[in-house]
């Protein structure tokens, strides 16, 4: 019973398994723990017609929308924290360039939870009386119903289960079998990894399975759910990765300014399409000196 499974692949190989039209649940929360290196490769491989789901939108989501990879967005709203708005998402919505199913944060999590539990729907007490509900009833009537509880008679919103084709999760630590440790708050990571049909872990650090066995309480995603493991140090850059590195303020500002000014294509050409892989990207953004300037302090975690 030593390590018998090696799911480690290169980023290129991992992204090749994504088909046009797939539904991907992306990683992280706003400006933290995004699977950016994965998103870059999705863009380089010109994946199209993706459905992207996430509780709170992320930089990764915005970039994929901007790069034209996304057909449909299922999410609970969000902005890039105090850094700024998600220009690509917000504009694509106004211009009707993407389909949108927009819920609240809790409702997205509950939809993943229902998918994870293998049940077709789950009731909720949120959304009632809102225009979010009204719009969903108009545009996605197969996804949401308002009914009366057969036990109590109270009004309930029934949320259809969400089952992404793939969940891509950026983790701090993983072994070659996919047993993943994640530090910090989990957002909806557990639910989406369990709702998805396949799971890809990109991680800062690959450790031996015996290290995982030393502290099994930390394993947030067990290996038996995971299909592919990718080594991606600084794979969340320019978003932060708790205990590993801080957000890159300079780079995020550069991204947002490019988006705001309508120069997102230029950004893409420079930092995504203009490099062959993640290692080249890390050099492009400033190499070792930059990376060490972002490195987290073990006590503060950023």
């Amino acid at each position, binding site marked *: 019973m030593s390590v018998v499974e090696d799911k480690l692949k290169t980023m290129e190989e991992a992204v090749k398994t994504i088909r046009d039209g797939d539904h991907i649940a992306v990683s992280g929360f706003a400006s933290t723990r995004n699977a950016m290196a994965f998103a870059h490769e999705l863009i380089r491989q010109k994946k199209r017609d993706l459905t992207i789901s996430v509780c709170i939108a992320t930089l990764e989501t915005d970039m994929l929308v901007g790069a034209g990879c996304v057909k449909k967005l299922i999410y609970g709203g969000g902005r890039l924290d105090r*850094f700024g708005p998600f220009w690509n998402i917000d504009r694509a919505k106004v211009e009707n360039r993407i389909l949108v199913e927009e819920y609240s944060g809790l409702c997205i999590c*509950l939809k993943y939870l229902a998918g994870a539990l293998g049940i077709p729907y789950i009731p909720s007490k949120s959304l009632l009386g809102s225009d979010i509900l009204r719009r969903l009833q108009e545009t996605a009537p197969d996804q949401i119903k308002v009914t009366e509880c057969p036990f109590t008679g109270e009004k309930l919103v029934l949320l259809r289960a969400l089952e992404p084709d793939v969940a891509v999760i950026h983790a701090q630590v993983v072994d070659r079998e996919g047993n993943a440790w994640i530090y910090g708050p989990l957002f*909806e990571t557990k639910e989406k990894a369990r709702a998805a049909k396949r799971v890809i872990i990109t991680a800062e650090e690959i450790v031996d399975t015996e290290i995982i066995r030393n502290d099994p309480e930390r394993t947030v995603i067990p290996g038996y759910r995971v299909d592919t493991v990718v080594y991606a140090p600084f794979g969340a850059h320019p978003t932060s990765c708790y205990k590993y590195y801080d957000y890159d303020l300079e780079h995020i500002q550069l991204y947002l300014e490019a988006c705001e000014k309508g120069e997102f294509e230029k950004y893409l050409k420079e930092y995504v399409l203009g490099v062959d892989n993640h290692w080249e990207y890390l050099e492009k953004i400033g190499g070792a000196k930059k990376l060490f300037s972002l490195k987290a302090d073990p006590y503060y975690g950023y």
Partner: protein
Amino acid sequence: MGKEFAKEWTPGELMAVAGAHLIKDGDIVICGIGLPEVATLLAIYTHAPRAKILMEQGVVEPKPVQFRRGVSMGLADPREWFRAKCFTDYIDIMGTTLQRGLVDIGMIGGLEVDKYGNVNSTLIGSYNKPLRYFTGSGGANDIASLAKKVVVIMRPHELRRFPERVAFITSPGFISGKGERERVGLRGGGSWRVITDLAVLGFDEETCQMKLLAINPKVTVEEVQARTGFKLIIPEKVELMSPPTIEEQKIIREILDREGLYTGWKQAAKGS
């Protein structure tokens, strides 16, 4: 230090103090960063040491006041997670705590709030013809739907932010009037207070319409009404918003908002 008041203060400080005073000792509070967090922590540092601050991303009772470097950019920023007592997840905070009925006070912001306390954080333009999209709900709809009491924090207090009817109900207040929350099946208490740089507002028990409760000592009732897009209920006695005590101001300026990012005190000091 007792009840000695600060001589000068900013509108942001006034808002933080107003928010803090709404929190009772032991309250469970959900809030995001910015003034809501400053207000909640101010309460915890003063009269409500047993109040609990929860954050929707899955952080319980952190000490988000001591930075190694940089400034906090949001709930996603590990600066906000520092020294938490529990790292958990979105569903644990927003489902098994908020939807479970345990949250006493939820604080939300938004683009617009209307006379029934409905909040729009989704779009400008109209429901059918949006001109621009914004944040949407995040956790705001859930908080407005499910918290026992909802505090809306919004600034600046200006006409376009206080329309008769919001363009899009992201987070329901009393929707279209009394009994409407119950009719649609909502459990939480709905909008309870609106805090702006000009005033603290509540809602009339009979009509569920917005009512002026207190004003910034530097403005008049007329100015507040003039900057509000619907007719406020104005009671005979309108209080003055409490300025920060010297102790409160010290906590704001030395611990909670050292850069004045939210209360603007440092910028005001420079400007004066």
